[in-house]
């Protein structure tokens, strides 16, 4: 058994001329049978595990959970069907690899490698045929044919590209520069849309807010586009802490008694940010750590953002609810080429 073991067909690639170390299974029938049993054991385990995975699927409720130490309360099908299936498949692989390593011939063989280039003659003949074929077509000689063909071919993809035009509308000035905020639009809380009284915002307070007409706009539009631009944060600072604002006059400031409204859309890449540190008055973006000073006109104090957070001018209406004085005076969100 062991003597003829690398019984390699003489017509097959020849064994490498390197001293070969025989394996236990090559020399010792006991080791050989042990290896055989190990491989069969792995295949047998695979069979049982795969059957088990099907049984688990069949006999478990789809949302049955069970507490497993370390993992937590897990879904039975996910964890146990997956585990038995995964281990079963792994055993197939492990068995095959073990078989190859222990029992299949492990004498390395040599195959010659022929140069990937052909001989000179063949190459010359190929080049000649190629040149002759091209010459026969006349494409080199008949310039007018060549040029007219190239012209036609160059235009051929054009209709296909033109057809992509309706992938989307052309960007318009209104879309790029405006939101649904208007003079008199009430600020309402996000999620439950409650109007906000000035007195309801304490110093150090934060309100994530949207325009009151957002639900109607979304109902009509069916998209989240309006929301993506109009979300704001409302904060209140001690008036003496406000260093600067983006606009307004002493008689008609953009804040209302220290209440400031800023866009929630980062001017860097548009992540919504409301990570507001009330003591430092800093607003931090969790995506790329741009930091804005809300006490100082939303100025960038750290990070990759280049522009101030746009401020929304606000005041109160007759009933004391916060309203916008106008739309934002600059485009909100990330920069774009046409932005001045």
């Amino acid at each position, binding site marked *: 058994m062991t003597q003829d073991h690398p019984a390699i067909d003489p017509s*097959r690639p020849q064994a490498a001329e390197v001293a070969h170390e025989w394996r236990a299974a090559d020399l010792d029938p006991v080791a050989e049978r042990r290896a055989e049993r190990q491989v069969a054991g792995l295949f047998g385990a695979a069979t049982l595990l795969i059957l088990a995975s099907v049984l688990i699927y069949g006999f478990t409720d789809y949302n049955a959970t069970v507490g497993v130490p370390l993992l937590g309360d897990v879904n039975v099908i996910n964890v146990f069907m997956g585990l038995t299936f*995964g281990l079963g498949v792994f055993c197939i*692989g492990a068995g095959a690899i073990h078989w*190859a390593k222990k029992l299949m011939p492990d004498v390395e063989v040599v195959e010659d490698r022929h140069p990937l280039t052909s001989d000179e003659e063949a190459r010359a003949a190929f080049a000649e045929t190629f040149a002759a074929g091209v010459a026969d077509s006349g494409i080199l000689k008949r310039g007018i044919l060549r040029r007219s063909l190239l012209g036609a071919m160059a235009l051929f993809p054009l209709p296909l590209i033109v057809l992509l035009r309706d992938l989307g509308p*052309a960007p318009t000035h209104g879309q790029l520069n405006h939101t649904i905020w208007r003079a008199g639009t009430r600020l309402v809380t996000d999620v439950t849309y409650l109007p906000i009284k000035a007195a309801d915002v304490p110093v150090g307070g934060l309100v994530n807010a949207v325009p009151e007409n957002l639900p109607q706009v979304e109902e009509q539009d069916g*998209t989240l586009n309006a929301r993506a631009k109009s979300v704001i944060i409302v904060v209140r600072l001690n008036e003496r802490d406000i260093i600067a604002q983006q606009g307004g006059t002493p008689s008609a400031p953009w804040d209302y008694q220290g209440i400031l409204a800023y866009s929630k859309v980062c001017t860097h890449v548009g992540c919504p940010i409301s990570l507001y540190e009330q003591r430092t008055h800093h607003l931090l973006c969790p995506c790329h750590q741009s930091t804005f000073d809300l006490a100082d006109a939303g100025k960038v104090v750290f990070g990759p953002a280049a522009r101030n957070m746009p401020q929304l001018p606000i005041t109160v209406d007759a009933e004391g609810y916060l309203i916008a004085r106008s739309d934002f005076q600059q485009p909100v969100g990330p920069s774009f080429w046409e932005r001045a």
Partner: protein
Amino acid sequence: MTPTTPLGRTAVALDERFAGAKGMRKLLNKVFPDHWSFMLGEIALYSFIVLLLSGVYLTLWFKPSMTEVVYNGSYMPLHGVRMSEAYASTLNISFDVRGGLLMRQIHHWAALFFVSSISVHMLRVFFTGAFRKPRELNWIIGVILLILAVVEGFAGYSLPDDLLSGTGLRIAQAIMLASPLFGTWMAFFVFGGEFPGLDFIPRLYTVHVLLIPLIFLGLIGAHVGMVFYQKHTQYPGPGRTNKNVVGYPLLPVYIAKAGGFFFAVFGVIATLGALVTINPVWLFGPYVPNQVSAGSQPDWYMGFLDGAVRIMPNWEVHLWSHTLSLNLVVPAMLMPTALIGLVVAYPWLEAWATGRTGEHHLLDRPRNVPTRTALGAAFLSFYLLLFIASGDDIISTTFHLAFNDITFLFRVLIFVVPVLVFWVTKRIALSLQRRDIDRLMHGNETGNVLRLPHGEFIEVHAPVNERDRARILSNPAIEPLPMPPATDAAGVRTPNYRAKRLQAKVSHFFYGDRIPMPSAEEIAAAQAHLDAGHHGHDELTH
């Protein structure tokens, strides 16, 4: 002599239809060199197969639609919440399709391993010089496969329309917007108008399940086909030359090992899918553009881009009422384009610097090509730094550091570290070469100390074994190209003098620092010396 066994008859039947007896026999006897590092590409291939299988399952239930629905499935914490159909169907797969969560997790883990294995495989190919002629085209196919894998992974991460993936898409859209000249148009075309619109996920779905997988199939076929046709490279060793392949035949050893490895990879991925949560979209919540989570990160393979964006200073240029966002154009467009260009061009750059045109089938040991190895290590350090920078917030909370300081530090490290790594790696490689030559000439230290009759103590040195000897002797010790003369003897200016001078300079950069291999005579003399029973360094130098 008609074969009588069933297997034999099958072989005959095949030949009678395709006349493939010769070719198929050759195929069965095809030799594959055996080395663990040659299996890395296989991990990628098998992950891809797992991705195809699990992906088909997911398509049976996933609905690529951004239309809003109210969720009423069995995950209570989101009951009654408005969300896109894409997200709702992902919840459905996770909680109401039996084993659906398992398939999702298998798919996602397989995707991470797909990109990991391609990357590591590529590093192996780079550091061993397997990209050299005649395999440059396959190197480029590999680069394209890596880029496609990253794009495909990002598409898959984006499809469920959860809060994390929506945040990622928002960033992608902002990067489009930042593109000079046509950025706004591009963003409007891709998203069908403003962000997020209703068109993007259905479009992305087609790209994810049809377009890119088809390109994958074609390119993977070409990639593996070329490996078959050109025959696999091999590491240097006894009996291994540039003109042969030493290894195991396809049938049976390689089929058993490679086939078994497929099942092993599948098994590991499925086990992970069973035991370890990945992408718990139900915790992230549906995407709404007014919500965000701390620690918003992309999957690992997008990390280097995210890190570059994070550490980039906030430069923006405003000219003639236009905005050029250098804070995005540089890290998210120019940097990756430059990296890809460098990687694609590298095989030709190195061949040009070497000035050689032959075929290379014997792999380099990384130490024997110090400059390439150092360049690769520097590249890797650059990539890793960007990758680490993308987790600056997690580093900040884990190690109680300020991400502000981390960012400032990385703005410096990104330029300093690669240079240092280049220098250190090159020195290490050259030192390893010196040690190799030392072992070749003086043998291995055995640890046995011998006292000579006159009282001197020496350590016994044993000749290196056959395998190490072959490996050490495989060092090509390439010499740099000589500086071309400006004019020839007759005073005529050398044609293409500037190009040739540049080539010589680059060649000097690559191969200027070299440890010359001892000549055959010197090796033979040293061998004789060792064989004669003399040991150690001292006698030889006397």
